[in-house]
Each structure stands twice: as C-alpha cells, then as structure tokens.
C-alpha cells in the first residue's frame, strides 16, 4: 500500500503474481465442512480464505420479519479482525453492512423462496483472510452452502470480478490490483439463465471498457461454476460412500 509499483503489468503482459490478464487465481472449494450449520462451504481464492454457513429454513426471529408468502433470506458478511493488514474491529463496518445486503440480494434470486413461506434462512459468511474480491468468493461459497443445506434452488450463483489495471482489462483482481488499479467490476450470475444477480463497479471505465469487463467477469464466472459443481459432486460422493460404509 505504501508505494505504487511502477507497473502492475509487466512488458510480457504478466501481472504482479505472474498471472495473465484473463487468468483466475488458484481456487480451492470444499462443501459441507461444518457440523452445526445446515449447510456450509469453504473457499480459498488466491489468499482469500472464506467460510460460509447456512441455517434454515427455520422459524423467523423476530416473528414480525417473516413474510406470509415467502421465505426470508438474511445474509451477514463479516471479516475476522485478523483477516486484513490492520486489525479490524469486530463490530460490523458500513462496508460490511452494504456487502451483506448486496450479497443477500445476489443469492436470493436463485432460491425458490415461495416454497417455504413464513420461514427464514440465515447465511453467515466469515472472511478469515482477505486479499481482494472477497464479496465474489463469498457469493460462490455461500451459494454452495445453500445447496448443501438442501434449500431448493434454480441454479447456483457464481461470482467473479474483472477490472482495469494499468490499461488492461483483467480478470479476478487481487488486493493490490484492486487498490491501485483503475476499476473493479464484481459480477454474480446464475449461469444457466445468464441472469446477473450482482453488479457493482467503482473506478473509471469508458462504456466499451465496462462492457469488456462485464464480459470477462462472466467468462470467469463460468470457469468457477465448474469448480463449484465439482465441489458439490465431491461432497455428494463422500456422503454416499460414508452411507454405504455404514450399511
């Protein structure tokens, strides 16, 4: 953060961590890793380490927040005090409150909320280590946690950002690129229907650059979608095996 490196992309078109512009960071996903949550998932994307847990469908507390015709999905995005350079107070910041809202709104369209009227589902996201793009990785993990909880869903939601660094549109910005780059465009999508459920942007992009960034982010989402499905499959196979062993 102290001094701006001369170049975020070198002469060979490589980024600070030697990725190509349209390359994702390493991603590792695990589903069903918490014993108390009804569903859970863990994601590592670059140095991001994020846990998501889901409780529900269940009775709403307080009751007056329940809705007669649908389930209410609540989401809390929270960062551990040690997840960032300078210790963060555990009290929710304004940024965390906004992200909780937009992440919840990004997940909700994927859920058949009308199946369980008057109930609630809580999605809890804990960022254990943050390195840029936490909201996207959180959505990717939280959607898996919802699936793991058996909540009926239209599709998984998968999320990835693109942005502009130096003069190049790049995929999946890490922290330094996010802070020193020109723009960041996080996108979440249900790939089956191409429905964009999260779209934010800050920075400075010409309209054509913005279009390019959205397209690249969607491209990234599709690649992560495969990893999501693979992680679900792995969990399912493990659960099946376990059952068979029991029998």
């Amino acid at each position, binding site marked *: *953060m102290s001094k701006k490196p001369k170049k975020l992309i070198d002469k060979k078109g490589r980024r600070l961590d030697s990725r190509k512009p349209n390359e994702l960071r390493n991603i590792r996903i695990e589903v069903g890793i918490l014993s108390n949550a009804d569903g859970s998932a863990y994601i590592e994307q670059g140095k991001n380490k994020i846990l998501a847990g889901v409780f529900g469908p269940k009775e709403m507390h307080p009751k007056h927040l329940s809705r007669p015709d649908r389930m209410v999905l609540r989401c809390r995005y929270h960062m551990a005090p040690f997840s960032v350079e300078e210790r963060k107070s555990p009290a929710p910041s*304004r*940024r965390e*409150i*906004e992200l*909780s*809202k*937009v992440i919840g*709104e990004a997940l*909700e*369209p994927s859920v058949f909320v009308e199946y369980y009227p008057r109930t609630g589902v809580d999605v809890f996201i804990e960022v254990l280590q943050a390195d840029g793009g936490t909201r996207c990785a959180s959505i990717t993990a939280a959607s898996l946690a919802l699936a793991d909880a058996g909540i009926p869903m239209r599709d998984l939601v998968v999320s990835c950002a693109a942005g502009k660094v130096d003069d190049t549109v790049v995929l999946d910005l890490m922290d330094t690129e996010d802070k020193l780059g020109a723009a960041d*465009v996080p996108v979440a999508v*249900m790939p089956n*229907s*191409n*429905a*964009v*459920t*999260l*779209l*934010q*942007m*800050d*920075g*400075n*992009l*010409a*309209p054509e650059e*913005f*279009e390019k960034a*959205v*397209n690249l982010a*969607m491209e990234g989402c599709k690649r992560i979608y495969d990893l999501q499905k693979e992680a679900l499959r792995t969990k399912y196979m493990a659960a099946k095996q376990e059952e068979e062993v029991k029998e």
Partner: protein
Amino acid sequence: MSSVITRVRRKQIKQLIEEGKRLDGRGLGDYREIKIEQGVIEKAEGSARVLLGKTEVLVGVKVETGSPFPDTPNDGVLTVNAEFVPLASPSFEPGPPNENSIELARVVDRGIRESKAIDTEKLCIEPGKKVFIVFVDIYVLNHEGNLIDASALAAVAALLNTKMSNYEIEDGEVKIKQGYTPLPMKNHPITVTLGKIDNKLIVDPWLEEEQVMDSRLSMALNDEGNICAVQKGSGGYFTQQQILEGMKVVQEKVAELRKKLKW
C-alpha cells in the same frame, strides 16, 4: 407498513408498463419533474434541496478541519452520511443508519469519490497532520421513490454551492481569515437509476413502482461520459443484454440531468 401496495394496483402498474405507459402518465424513459434549489441552509457551508416529483432530499455540507487518513496524508477527507428521517415515510424508523441508508450513502459516496469530483489535494492544510473534512449529509425529507438519483443530484448540487472559509497558518495553528473560497471541484458525476419490471426498463421509478419492480440498476457517469460507479440492487437480476441496453439509456438521461445542474 402502510406503504405496501395492493395486488390490484400491482397488476395495473405491470399491465401499463407492458404497454409502455406508467400510472402517473410518464413514458418509460421519463423522469418526474426535477427542481434543484441551492443554498437553502445558510448555516451550512453548502446545501441543496432536490425535488424529484414528490421525493424530497436535502443535502447539507459542513467543512471542518481534522486529520487525514494515514495512507493519504496529502488529501482532504470526504464523508457521506444518509439519514432516513422518520417523517419522510411510514417505513422509516428512528434509529441508527440501517442497511438501506448505508447503501444509499455509499452509492452516492462512490459516485463522488471515483469521479474525483472534489480536488481533495487542495483540501490539505498540513500534509499528514491537518486537512479539511467535507461532511456530506443526505437528509431524506419525503420518500416517494428513487432516493439514489435525488440524493446524488442534491449532493453534487450542494458541493457546487459549498464555500470554505479562507485561512492562514500561523505558528502551526489554522487561523480563519475573512472571505470564502468555493470548494475545489473537478468533476460532476450524475447518477441515473433504472427499474426492471417484467423485462422492461424504466427510468426514475417512483415509490409504487419500486414495490413492484424486480430489480434496480444505478450508474454514475462523469463529465467525460465514463462510468465511475454502478450498483445493482433490490434482488432480481438483469441479463447481460439488459445491462448494455440500460447503459445506453443512462447515457442519454445523464446528458438530460446534467443540463439541470448549472455550474
């Protein structure tokens, strides 16, 4: 909440929009009447009141001195806060900011910050020690829909109206001198919000449309026509196609709104 809409009304709104019409007679791409009044709070360093139809937002700007952030020692500080004043709507409760007012404040903040509207380097008094802090307080006085556009517009209008006391540094202390200087402004972001109702995009949704619409998309454009902030909100989704289509509409409406904002 007394502002919940009936099923009949809901159907009516949707049907009209299907036909390219709106309950209040507007076309899908029309704003409500816009009034901008600057300098309404004499005690504030800057202020503006915006009426968007019956939606009313007052923004007051106070300029004080304080410490810069450690990582930007040469820059003044911008702080945007939004209050959902309870007399503005039966759905507003007194109390600390909630997720809705925080989202509003942060969207307006991003438009101003990312477009570099304020020349924050000129707000530095003593690097690393003392800078001017610009407090932008958004006060929603009547909520009839589309608070984002009304607030963003009022914020920029208020900043354009803001004057700061002249000062001198004497022995490390800031001494106020006679006279005022306008707040140094470099850009003028304009935010336009679209609603999506059954795959139709509408501009400037009002309260009842907000209760019917599937999703919302706001974009802030700077003087050069570049995009500096985007926020999709309110659940639902947009297709990739709708986003690009929406961008075109926004470009058009920003040009229209920009004319209302004299500077």
